[in-house]
């Protein structure tokens, strides 16, 4: 059907003889201007004749326009006489007329102040529900873990080792590099401020306290929340959306035991190890800056570390690692299990998992800080 060089579609009426003429291609590609003109048929006593002998093409859009014009005059295709309309086109007009007679119901509008209040209310309710779900899931995971300990559930070693490699070993370069850089940045900060007091040597304490107590574990947890927590959600979520989880259940297996526990245990083991790496790399970063910017030699740096920094700071940082690992793994897996049907849902829950995991990690870190301060560690 050539469309490019065709004349524009036309609609003209001659009220005297009650004739309307359709001409040109009445197709979607050409009808824009004619639709915008909103042609009408004056209603009168006479029976209209519609001359379509010069109509070169008709598609559903054209048929719809014709039906609109007729309906504007309170008419249907049966109330007018067609001349020169091909049978196929007449059938199309009748089909379109029949189909568009069925009433269309409007969708619910979703704006306004009340809708906003409603959304806020829902968001609060959802927050509460999420907290309850998380708590419930923690309990379920713990119960399954206990099942493993007393021998009622199996531990999947292959899966655990696989996830240890994925979440732990593969994360070594990024954790090491970022920790090194942050360590260097902290040393620079210390150097700038402390030099004015002639207390540059305290940079060593600044770096070591910061990294052993807080930054080592926090940095690692945040990297792993973004890297592994999201991966857990995406992996489990895409399995859920393809009904693989239902298949697991239908085979009489437990998705918690099969999917959640290996990820949890892997992260449980790897996050403390990565935290240790992060601490070491942070101290190295601080040391390098001290060496080049503050003229503190490596020997001095290490001696100062050993003399001034007590081992308890290391343990304060380290004890948080498994707890953060637990939070990240549980949130990641739970969000994955909450995925429904569509691929869009996987993306939404992955985002939610990362945000929630980082949120929880920082909240718990703050709680730990208050606790350690109270007990004087």
């Amino acid at each position, binding site marked *: 059907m050539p469309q490019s060089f065709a004349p524009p579609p036309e609609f003209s009426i001659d009220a005297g003889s009650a004739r309307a003429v359709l001409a040109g291609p009445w197709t979607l590609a050409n009808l824009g201007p004619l639709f915008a003109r909103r042609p009408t048929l004056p209603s009168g006593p006479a029976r209209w004749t519609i001359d379509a002998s010069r109509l070169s093409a008709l598609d*559903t859009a054209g048929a719809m326009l014709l039906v609109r014009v007729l309906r504007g005059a309170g008419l249907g295709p049966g109330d007018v006489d067609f001349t020169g309309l091909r049978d196929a086109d007449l059938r199309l007009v009748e089909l379109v007329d029949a189909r568009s007679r069925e009433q*269309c119901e409007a969708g619910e509008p979703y704006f306004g102040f009340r809708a906003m209040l409603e959304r806020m209310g829902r968001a609060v309710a959802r927050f509460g529900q999420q907290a309850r779900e998380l708590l419930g899931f923690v309990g379920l995971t713990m119960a399954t873990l206990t099942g493993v300990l007393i021998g009622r559930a199996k531990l999947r070693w292959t899966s655990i080792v696989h996830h240890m490699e994925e979440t732990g070993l593969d994360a070594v370069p990024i954790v090491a590099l970022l920790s090194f850089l942050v360590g260097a940045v902290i040393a620079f900060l210390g150097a700038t401020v402390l030099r004015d007091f002639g207390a540059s040597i305290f940079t060593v304490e600044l770096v070591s306290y910061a990294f052993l107590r807080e930054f080592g574990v926090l940095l690692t947890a945040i990297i792993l929340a973004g890297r592994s927590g999201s991966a857990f959600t995406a992996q489990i979520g895409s399995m859920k959306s393809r009904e693989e989880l239902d298949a697991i259940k239908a085979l009489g297996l437990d998705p918690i035991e099969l999917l959640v526990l290996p990820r949890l245990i892997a992260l449980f083991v790897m996050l403390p190890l990565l935290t240790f790496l992060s601490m070491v790399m942070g101290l190295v970063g601080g040391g390098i800056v001290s060496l080049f910017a503050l003229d503190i030699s490596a020997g001095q740096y290490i001696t100062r570390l050993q003399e001034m920094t007590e081992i308890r700071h290391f343990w304060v940082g380290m004890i948080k690692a498994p707890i953060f690992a637990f939070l990240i793994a549980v949130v990641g897996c739970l969000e994955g299990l909450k995925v*429904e049907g*569509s691929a869009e849902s996987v993306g939404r829950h992955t985002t939610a998992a990362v945000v929630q995991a980082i949120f929880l990690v920082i909240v718990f870190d703050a709680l730990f800080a208050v606790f350690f301060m109270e007990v004087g560690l």
Partner: protein
Amino acid sequence: MSAGAGERERVVEVRGLVSRFGTQVVHDGLDLDVYRGEVLGVIGGSGAGKSVLLRTIVGLRQPQGGTIRMFGIDTTHMDDAERRPIERRFGLLFQDGALFSSLTVLENVRVPLIEYYRLPDDVVDELAMLKIRLAGLPTSAAHKYPAALSGGMRKRAGLARALALDPEILFLDEPTSGLDPLSAAAFDELIATLHASLGLTVFLVTHDMDSLYAVCERVAVLSNGRVVVADTIDRVEQHDEEWVRQCFLGPRGRSAARQAELVGPTASRPA
């Protein structure tokens, strides 16, 4: 429609198509014609390259050899911009509808209309609604999201979107797979009705023997990387290629044929 001297106009012409995935050859010099106004069924065993053929014709996949002409224009090596005017002229229904999950059914159907043409808003809505009804969906489904629809309804919604631009040719990728027999039969009937009333050319990839008998005027059988036979279903039944015989003379083929004889074809076959 301009039918050439005695010969029917070819909407799609595939010549010497070669498709390879690594060392695995899917199509090896495949030839196929689709004539204007017909319903062509494409069948073949799993892995025979039916879906690959469809994706290659519509330009989602570059072939390793051969040419494809659509509407008489060589589209084999077109870039995206050149392809766009061609894309408006065909509709494509994916296996599971491939609806945009963040949009309602109505919005899904509106997408091509808004993207390609400047039309008043109410006209777009009315056209989209018309397509939804033509696809046999209740109007209440128009404001639902794809996740809230059943498999059959998702396919109908996908069909409504494929019909949005009044295509000349409609490509359907296994439209009845995953549907219950009643929904599948209703879908076949819908295709036959649309074919008859809109004058569509339909390229139907299917596994479903009932669909072949119910709607297809011509059937092309894919085997070993080529079209073994492309003819009316009565003649294809008589063909003596191994896969064709097993397929048509096997229990499913026979029962579908018997069914077709009892009910009579729903499609209006040309005399």
